[in-house]
């Protein structure tokens, strides 16, 4: 069995051993050789940084892999296979204006699907009981957004009776569908089937808050579930604490905290990380997290805040074996109270200027091309 298959198709995503660690390093080396051979831009970057795949001998060497920032992927196309071999394309949601285009080849996609199925099955998200869905994201069709695809994909983990979208496609544009969602919800509440809410946390928050403001308190089927991913994005000013958020959902929809699941994922790193009952995102055996210095991207000590960076050999079509996101996080390999033996990271915030409008950057919007070139 090839190393990638060995890594990504295991029933327990978190259980690791020496054999798997070896497989991880071997798969990473082999993917990097492929990217350097087939992606001239990445080969140039690797050469500039004096990196060769054979340099990867131990886990500590993983930090040496030329790391690609998500910003680079937003501004450049970077493929290691002919574009005709891409099975799917997705765009990041482009919180700050520009979006990455990510393309995945058939083999990585099939491996990724198996990984996701195992992963969500481990987290008991997969169910045969039909559900009514509230999709807290975009309606697919008019968009290439990864978020739309992820949310729609997530609504296949249990058979769908009906799907109502928070962002509905109307004549090729997206409109907020608050009224439609509220009507659907009242209808769902009378049905004997569970309801699943999937998508952006910010929409879940606004939905629950508007229900509370109107004095609505529903008792949905106890198998109902909230499945969130994607960060607070444009509503970051409204972020509330996790406890208050869970309490609000319980108060308005009757869904208990144990049935509110949060996942972390990114278009540029299409793997999922689940938040445990202690609030941590555990790292599966097929991925590694490196926290990098906010000043020079070098790895920092466990427990220190820095930029969240991942290494995983999943994607064959793009040299995104090692990526650095613009999320700030801390990493720990201390035992976690939830019992999951895998190390974990906690999200701390996002890189960037928040709350300050820079005069000049805003002026550059007029030019339609974001800050600098």
């Amino acid at each position, binding site marked *: 069995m090839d190393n990638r298959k060995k890594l990504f198709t295991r029933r327990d995503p978190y259980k690791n051993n020496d054999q798997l660690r070896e497989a991880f390093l071997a798969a990473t080396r082999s993917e990097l050789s492929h990217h350097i051979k087939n992606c001239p831009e990445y080969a140039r970057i690797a050469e500039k940084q004096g990196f060769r795949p054979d340099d990867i001998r131990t886990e500590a060497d993983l930090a040496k892999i030329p790391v690609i920032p998500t910003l680079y992927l937003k501004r450049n196309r970077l493929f290691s296979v002919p574009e005709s071999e891409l099975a799917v394309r997705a765009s990041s949601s482009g919180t700050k204006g520009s979006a990455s285009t990510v393309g995945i080849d058939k083999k990585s996609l099939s491996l990724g699907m198996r990984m996701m199925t195992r992963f969500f099955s481990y987290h008991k998200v997969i169910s045969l009981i039909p559900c009514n869905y509230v999709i807290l994201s975009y309606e697919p069709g008019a968009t290439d957004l990864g978020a739309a695809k992820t949310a729609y994909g997530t609504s296949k983990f249990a058979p769908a009776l009906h799907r109502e979208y928070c962002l509905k496609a109307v004549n090729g544009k997206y409109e907020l569908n608050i009224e439609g969602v509220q009507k659907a919800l009242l209808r769902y509440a009378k049905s004997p089937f569970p309801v699943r809410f999937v998508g952006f946390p910010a929409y879940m928050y606004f939905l629950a808050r508007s229900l509370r403001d109107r004095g609505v308190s529903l008792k949905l089927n106890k198998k109902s579930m909230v499945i969130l991913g994607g960060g607070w994005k444009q509503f970051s000013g409204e972020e509330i604490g996790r406890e208050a958020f869970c309490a609000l959902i319980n108060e308005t929809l009757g869904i208990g905290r144990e049935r509110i699941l949060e996942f972390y994922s990114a278009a540029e790193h299409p793997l999922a990380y689940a938040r445990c009952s202690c609030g941590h995102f555990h790292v599966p055996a097929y991925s590694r997290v490196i926290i990098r210095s*906010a000043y020079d991207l070098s790895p920092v000590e466990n427990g220190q805040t820095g930029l969240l960076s991942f290494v995983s050999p999943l994607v064959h079509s793009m040299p995104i074996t090692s990526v650095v996101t613009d999320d700030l996080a801390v990493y720990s390999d201390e035992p976690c109270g939830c019992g999951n033996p895998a190390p974990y990271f906690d999200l701390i915030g996002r890189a960037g*200027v928040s709350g300050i409008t820079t005069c*000049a950057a805003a002026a550059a919007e007029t030019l339609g091309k974001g800050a*600098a070139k």
Partner: protein
Amino acid sequence: MNLVFGEFLDNAAAKEAVSRLGELVLEARRQPPLLRDTVIRACDRLSRSLRDEDCIPLLTGMGLSPEKAKAELGYARFVTSREYLTSRLIREFGGTEDGRFTPCGEDRPVRLEWKPLGVLMHIAAGNVDAAPVYSVLEGLLTGNVNILKLPGGDNGLSVLLLKKLIEIEPAIEKYVFVFDFPSADTETLGRIAAVSDAVTVWGGDEAVSAARKLAMPDTKLIEWGHKLSFAYVSGDVGISALEGAAKNICETEQLLCNSCQGVFLDTDDFEEVCRFAERFAAILEKTAESIPSSLPPAVAAQKTLELYTEELEAEPGSKRVYRRGGVSVIAYNDSELTASYAFRNCWVRPLPKDKLLSELSKYKNLLNTAALLCPKKDRAELEALFEKTGVVRITSGERMSRSYCGAPHDGELPLRRYMKLVSYEY
């Protein structure tokens, strides 16, 4: 924090006030007109009451460095002083002549008088600490009733200063409304706009577009949109001129409309651009050392990612990155005008004199200040070129972000925009 008729209100009470804003505004307008002298006297007293021992701790508590706090406070005292305001009014509206004249071809005299527009809604920007107050002060000086919508994440300074001004001069009380509703609350903001004669908006495209949507066709829009500024270097330029531009970059962190974003060099040779970039990086590094700053880690992280991405993208023939001790200069081989990454990260680009007009003409309504760094003998020729573009201020590097009393803003006299000329003839 909301402020109506001199009282602090919570959001629910403020919402209630907005629901009867039409009446409240009418009540304010039924007052005797607010005289300039009254406003000037109140501002002058405010200016003299801003004592270091009270204000510096307040400002440093809001996150300003002690040096910045001192400078901001000094500026606030200066622009609210009687001397400044009197001089500014003369600069904008002329002397004491009463506006009477007999128009050409007429046989009777007419009289022209500047009068307030009436009610001004101010949508303030968040990038200058006390900007919302300055906007309201301009509205008061011109006798208007002012309704201020605070920027998101406002630090509370504006409301405190306005409250203080009202305590000094209660006649101002009814001329100032402050509301702290989020920009997303378009329904409430629309109601405020509906009772206003003009909406003055400071901010980026998003703010300006939002204001355009808020204001009905019968409401005048006064837009102070965001702008870009740069330095132009031509011929032999001494180190002190370049240090001036570097000083502006460090002092303003490139966040203002008139901050230097980068340098256009009078050449079409990319190698020359790179040599200059390397030289300027050294000057910028040295200047930065004398003006310490500390970036919040989240901002530092963003800059690190941006510069690393630029380095990954760099190509010897089109882009080179020069990083030195917390500053950077990126040499590009194009003549585009872009915002820099700010926080002491600037660009250098080729822009030969003969292409200056064609390249800069692309940027309508977007240019602000050009620092002209060239031998004195070439100034007139280059000034003539810049005049034809959208540039509204030509100065040295060091003076780019320094204002002076009576200075036009974005090429206009601001106070005039808040007034109308009424013509009287019988």
